[in-house]
């Protein structure tokens, strides 16, 4: 019975598969790169 109701409902509801979560893009940060370089040179001096 639930299935037959679902048949009717699919005709009303356009099923686009639901709202997706966002993609995860990888980040390359200029500021982080320079922070690491700076830390690296400080550590090597010590």
């Amino acid at each position, binding site marked *: 019975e639930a299935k037959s109701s679902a048949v009717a409902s699919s005709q*009303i509801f356009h*099923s686009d598969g639901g709202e997706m*979560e966002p993609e995860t893009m*990888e980040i*390359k940060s200029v500021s982080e790169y320079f922070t690491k370089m700076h830390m690296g040179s400080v550590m090597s001096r010590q």
Partner: protein
Amino acid sequence: MDTGGSVVSMRAEEPSFHVRYRMEVSCLELALEGERLCKVGDYRAGVSFFEAAIQVGTEDLQVLSAIYSQLGNAYFHLHDYAKALEFHRHDLTLTRTIGDLLGEAKASGNLGNTLKVLGRFDEAVVCCQRHLDIARDINDKVGQARALYNFGNVYHAKGKSICWSGAEPGDFPEEVMTALRKAAEYYEANLAIVKELGDRAAQGRTYGNLGNTHYLLGNFRKAVASHEQRLLIAKEFGDRSAERRAYCNLGNAYIFLGEFEIAAEHYKRTLQLARQLKDRAVEAQACYSLGNTYTLLQDYERAIDYHLKHLIIAQDLNDRIGEGRACWSLGNAHTALGNHDQAMHFAEKHLEICRETGDRSGELTARM
């Protein structure tokens, strides 16, 4: 150095050290400003600064890679996927040239996401595989998890791109089901890692997309279970957008389970959150879903109430197609109640909108 002690170039056409130094500093300053702007969401301005940084130039290839990568991401957020592709490709080539394995993994991941949006799924899979392979080689669990999530997204998108509108969830062609099952496997593999890492935000994202995958596979109970987890995590973070998405997706799953009262409760929460978030388009969608749900419950008075709310917002937003849908639904609901004058009014409005928007099938239906 000449006998007077001043710095001169060895050759007249080569920039001197201090000129090159100034250029490097300028490039860096421009890039840092671009980064700051993108961080606050001003991608258009960020792009300008990054493009200017490239014009100035740098000899530091790690900096150049970061600029290419961030340009790619900025264009991605601006929905200019052709440009995003161009810059992520530049970044990938550069990372391979300088032997930056971690950088190559990241560039592959970003390129894969971009190719996915462009519908180039087979190429996207290759990129995801490269991302995953490198992450495994360097024992980067976080990277592996992210690659698996991207893989899931690619197969989910591939499945959706093939399925045709006449079929219901669970009844799609075999190649669609195969793609969706693969998506589910990748999401599960991702979940295993992100649970081990204790990354709740990542778990939330994966549960949401896994829920949508189960929904399309016709596994509505599993869809509900996944979306409930997504909802829980959204509440943990106070992420109301994610909470709103989860309630909406739960509503959809309960419709296909035939549990319309429960679906209505979830759609009401969706509506409440949409209003709090001041997102009128989403508010309209929630009203439409509630109108349809009450139609299924044969509570036509409530259905009309929500379809009218949907109609008003559609008019405010100049959404003629939404207006057409609302009029169609209102016409049907009034017919069910025996309100023939009102039914005729909305049927005529629906027909008028179908003609205006060139909706031939809608027009034919309206004439019937």
